[in-house]
Structures are given as C-alpha cells and as structure tokens.
C-alpha cells in the first residue's frame, strides 16, 4: 500500500472519530446525568431565623392600623406596592439562598428591621396629617422608601454574614429535635464584638440553649456596618432565633 495514501486515509478516519466525539459532547448527550445533582440532602438542613421581635410587633401594629383605616390615598397605595415589591425581592433572595445545595445549614431571613421601621412610621404620620399634607409626605415617603431599599440590601448582606457565622459555629446537641426553638438576645459593641448573650426564650432543652449561646459566643466578633446610625438601629441589639427544621428526628 502506498504509504502517503494510507496516512491520508488514516487521518480522515481519525478526524471522523474525533468529530463524532465532539458532536456528542456538543449536543450534551449526557445532560440528564448531570441533573442528578439536584437531590437535596435530607437531614443536614437547619434554619436560623434572625428576627427582631420589636419590629415584628410594630409590623403587626401597623397592619392592624391599616386595616382600620377605610380611606387610603392613592400615593399610599403606590408606596405600598413599592414596598411589596422590595419585600418580594427579599423573598426571592431568601429562596435563592435556600436553594443552595451545599450541605451547610440553610439561611432564612425574616424581613429585617430597617424596612419595617421606615414604612410604619410614615404610615402613622400619614394618618395624623391632613389630606393635603399627606400628598407631600407621600413624595418624601417614596424617596425614603427608595433609599431604604438600597440601605436594606446592604444591611441584608451583613445580616446574612452574621447568620452564616453563627450557623458555622453552631453544633447542635444530639438531643436537638425539629421544631425546638430558642431565641437569644445578642448585644454587640460598635466593633462588632459580642458583649452579651441572653436566652430570651428557652427551647426547654438546656443543651440546645447552651449550644445556641455557644454558637454566638464562639463567633466572638461579627462584621457590622461602619455606619454608626445603622449599627445603633439594627445591630446594637438583636435577637436570633435558633430552630433546626430538618433534623432527622
């Protein structure tokens, strides 16, 4: 056989083999194999909810008041819609975080202080003010709301960071059960150091409470916003809810 011809034929065959393989890869023929990764680990999944009961109460109050009010001006509704939208965005963020397939405990965040502080306050003022005043307030309101959105987003990052740290340091005792919950009140100084941790609401299981306290104290120092105002408002003192939701028991 002529050697040049044999090399040409061999080369063509080799190209053919590689072409087939490349085509198979390009068409993602093994796509369904990759999807197996979606299976969630079913037991290592705890939820920590940082919650400020003070603002939560406020929220409820304002809701109550809102329902009592028969008349609402248009702008207010608009504002509310805006607020809802931001809330929806937070919800979205939450769910996104939740979908994280890492076997780390999943973080869930209740609507954080700031945004609820802003809104109800304005509401109350609006009630008090006359109809005309309300219009101007509404304008300011909207601005505030917009500012609050970006501020809140920043604050959310800090909150998320703190939660992550706590979750990392939290080793649950064997006696922990789904549905147990302990609320801790944490005091920080502006450098972010933990100065005091108190059990505000016990889970009824000492070991569980201790583990929660330990999780916070172990962290020693949290990253907090440098902005003093913000720190004072949201991070000087806050409560943390420990609630393992997805234990095996």
């Amino acid at each position: 056989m002529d050697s040049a011809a044999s090399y040409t034929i061999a080369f063509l065959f080799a190209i053919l083999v590689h072409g087939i393989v490349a085509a198979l890869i390009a068409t993602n023929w093994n796509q369904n194999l990759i999807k197996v990764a979606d299976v969630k680990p079913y037991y290592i999944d705890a939820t920590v909810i940082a919650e400020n009961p003070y603002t939560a109460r406020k929220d409820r109050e304002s809701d109550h008041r809102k329902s009592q009010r028969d008349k609402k001006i248009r702008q207010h509704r608009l504002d509310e819609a805006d607020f809802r939208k931001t809330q929806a965005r937070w919800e979205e963020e939450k769910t996104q975080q939740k979908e994280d397939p890492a076997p780390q405990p999943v973080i869930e965040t209740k609507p954080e202080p700031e945004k609820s502080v802003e809104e109800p306050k304005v509401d109350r003022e609006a009630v008090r003010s006359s109809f005309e005043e309300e219009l101007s307030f509404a304008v300011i309101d909207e601005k505030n709301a917009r500012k609050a959105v970006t501020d809140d987003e920043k604050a959310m990052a800090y909150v998320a960071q703190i939660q992550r740290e706590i979750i990392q340091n939290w080793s649950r005792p064997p006696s922990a059960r789904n549905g147990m919950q302990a609320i801790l009140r944490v005091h920080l100084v502006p450098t972010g150091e933990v100065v005091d941790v108190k059990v505000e609401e016990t889970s009824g299981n000492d070991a569980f409470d201790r583990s929660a306290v330990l999780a916070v104290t172990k962290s020693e120092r949290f990253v907090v916003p440098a902005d003093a105002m913000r720190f004072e408002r949201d991070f000087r003192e806050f409560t943390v809810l420990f609630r393992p939701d997805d234990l095996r028991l």
Partner: protein
Amino acid sequence: MNEPLSIVDLILNASIVVQVVMAILIMASLASWVMIFQRGFALTAIRNDAAEFEIEFWSGKDLGLLYKELDEQESDLIGLENIFSSGFKEFSRSRQQEGVDPDRLMQNVQRAMRVALSREEERLETHLTFLATVGSTSPYIGLFGTVWGIMNSFRGLATVNQASLSVVAPGISEALVATAIGLFAAIPAVIAYNRFSAQVEVILNRFEAFTDEFSSILYRASHKGS
C-alpha cells in the same frame, strides 16, 4: 441558570494554560488515532502479503522464477518478499563466484537475511513508540491541566468571602475536562499499542520461521551443488 454548563462552554472559558494543555492533548489524540488506523491498515496488509507469499513460495514454483518476478515488481518489497529476495540475491551472487566455500556462502546468505529481517522489524514497529508515549504521558499532561485549573479556582476562592459550591464548581469542572481529554487520548493509544505490539510479535515470529526454513532450503541447495 439551572441548565447545566455545557462542556463546550467550559472548554472555551478555560484559562489559557488549561486550554493549551487541552490543545496538546487533542493533537496527541488526533495523531495517535492517525497512527492507530495507519498501523492497522499496514499490519493487515503485511500479514496478507506474507500469507500470499508463503502460499506462492510453498507451491513448488521455481525459486529463481519467483525471485525474477519480485525483482521486476515496481513497488517496494515488504515483509517476506524482502527477506526472500535479499537472501536469494546474496545466494545467487555468491554462487556465481568461483570456489566459494558452501559454509561461507550460507553465512553470507544468513547475514543478508538477518539484515532484511531487522529492517522489516523496524518497519513493523514504526509509530509504536509514539503510541506508547501518548498512552503513558497524556494522563499526566491532563492531570497537570486539572491541577493547574483547580489551583486557580481555589486561589480565586480565597478572595471571595461567600464561598459556596457554585463558585468553585465551574472551575473544577473545567479543570477536570483536561483529565478527561487526557484519558480519552491515552486509553485508545494504550490499547492500540498492546494490540499492535502483540501482532508485530506474531508477524516477526513468522518471518523468523520463514527465514530458517528458507536458509535450510538454500543450505541443501548449496551443499548439493558442491
């Protein structure tokens, strides 16, 4: 976002070192497949030729006539034909000289055939070393690409404060493509190397057997004449 990353995207977005590694491996794979096919064809051809020639050789045909036919053939003589013709050429040439000792003559013939045999052996084993090299080194080259890629993706991870699996995963996956290509190149090369060297062994044994048989025929012929 939920759609899994396609491998093509991974390759295209890989870092330059990893891409170079992949390119080298793909070339190696391509070259080794060229060798595989070429060797496959060549060895089959040689085997068939040898079988045909053996049939012709043992058919009781006059060896001088056979030699003349081969001599007139245009193409290069390969395999048994080459051994036969170089042996016979030496035999007839020495025979024409006056007063050559039959043992000396046989020595010359055998030397000529040994030379032809080793030339054939060389020809049979061309590219086999290349296949062996690809088979043994390309996993390492791929591994290098992977290690490099993973190294980089972890280095990148150091600056991210929110480390999650989805940050590292694409980098590692991309790096692993290099190993995959390395193995893709190596496995056929190793298989082909083993297969071909076994075949070469068989063919060479056959050649040697033929050489012995042919030299014993020539021995008889040379001693009968004297």
